[in-house]
């Protein structure tokens, strides 16, 4: 945590940031009929359980990406 980070004001989320944030909702929620199956078992786990574990990691990645997008905007144009 640098002091620069503490001091820059947060800006409202950008459209791009929100769109990336919707990706996990499609992966883990709306698409449930597509992945709610037992087979194929992967790493010994039923497919639906494996799918959700994989998407926890992907979601975390998505949010890291959104953070980069938003930080980039805030650094370029602080205030406003």
């Amino acid at each position, binding site marked *: *945590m640098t002091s620069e*980070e*503490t001091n820059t*004001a*947060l*800006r*409202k*989320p950008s459209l791009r*940031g*929100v769109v990336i*944030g919707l990706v*996990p*909702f499609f992966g*883990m*929620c*709306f698409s*449930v*009929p597509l992945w*709610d*199956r*037992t*087979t194929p*078992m992967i*790493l*010994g*786990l*039923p497919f*639906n*359980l494996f799918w*959700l*574990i994989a*998407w*926890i*990691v992907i*979601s*975390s990645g*998505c*949010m*890291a990406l*959104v*953070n980069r997008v*938003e930080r980039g905007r805030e650094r370029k144009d602080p*205030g*406003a």
Partner: protein
Amino acid sequence: MTPGTTAILVICLIVSVGSFFGFRASLGRRKGLEEWTVAGRSFGLLFMWLLMAGEIYTTFAFLGASGWAYSRGGPALYIMSYITLGYVISFYLLPYVWQLGRRYGLQTQSDFFEQRYGSKALALVVSITGVLFVIPYLQIQLTGLGIIVQVASFDQIPRGTAMFIAVTTVALFVLMGGMRAVAWVSVLKDSLMILAAVSIGIYVPLHYFGGFEPLFQQIARNHPAHLTMPGTTKTMGHAWFISTVLLSACGFYMWPHTFGAAFTAKSGHVLRRNAIVTPLYTISLAFIFIAGFAALLLIPGLSNGDMALLMLARKSFSPWFLGVIGGAGALTAMVPAAIILLTASTLFAKNVFRPIFRPRMPESQVVYLAKTTVLILAFAGFYLALHSSTTLVALLLIGYSGVSQFFPGVVLGLFWPRVTTAGVLAGLIGGLTTVSTLMLSHRDPVYGLNAGFIALTLNFAVTVSVSLGMEPQESRLSLDEP
């Protein structure tokens, strides 16, 4: 020494060590309201993470998730999904809530509503609803503690006695420690919980079945429908999954205590990083599900699924390790129970009692009143836990249906200048009425959808249309001004 005595002694040891660390951390700090409730707004990423994981991964995740995997099957997976998506939503809300909290000195959810909408009535409705719906959450923790002590003592200590001891310990802990102590105990709690989850979730399948795949193959053969939705239920299909995940993810940070945790952060960026990192912790839930599924084959026929994980541990491990798992479980109940008590009692004293009865009450007396409220709420939760037979997950769903009704007021309050006080109040009351009517008449799920979700949709529609039908109203908060 009997196995029960050994296990109980280990649990007591773990709880005492945890409490000791907690008390030590909070010694020597000035105990104003701000220190007691929001730890002086000083938490960096590590502490924030501990506090947030501390309040999210509760007995519900430990016993309730395995209990549903055991008794319901596939529908239990909704838990992994909604927690992750709840963090995604938090990325877009909490940093802004924090920023406003810092600018206007907010400490509770109700403070936020009062500052944004300039309405004491709305703030009051929010506080009372928050305190009411957090009680089932408290009840979950106490019920969980009761189950742990009962199973670990090999049924020597009755559940009622166990819950009484537990509730007294938690109340003392809150009264003497405050939020900083709670965050410290989370350190021990989270390490032990991961240890317990991983050891049960890996050891049990290996020991009894020779791996994950043979375990799941056998479930697929013997209980072909169990691993997918709707599992053993008739109503919890894909529509239920989607509506419940959306409702719970929206409600995730609408609990008075989870919303309030945002104010303990040192900066908004800490909360953003929390939303990136903390979901990964949810992976440990997979081990807990695996334990619940294994219990289906190893100890079939339990009347209460919530006991599955501990009965499995009792069957598989020596008493001292049952004690370690029980101790982890006890802390996962005590930490959230403490946070809930602390937040709900502050909310009651500061945002319900003071504005109605004693507007000029000094802060020192608010602290005193909040501490008295801790005792009242603790024993209300104890009474309910003693006289109820609802499963842990069902209790949580009741709470979520209620607190998620705050969501429109928070989101629109932050990002839509056009929203009005009357709109939010109408939506909130409409949503709460709908959800109470549906649940009290046992019509949840309705047409395959979660009742709380239907209420939330209605709430949004009412809030937006009432707001648009009125004169615009000036917002008393701004994200943009410095």
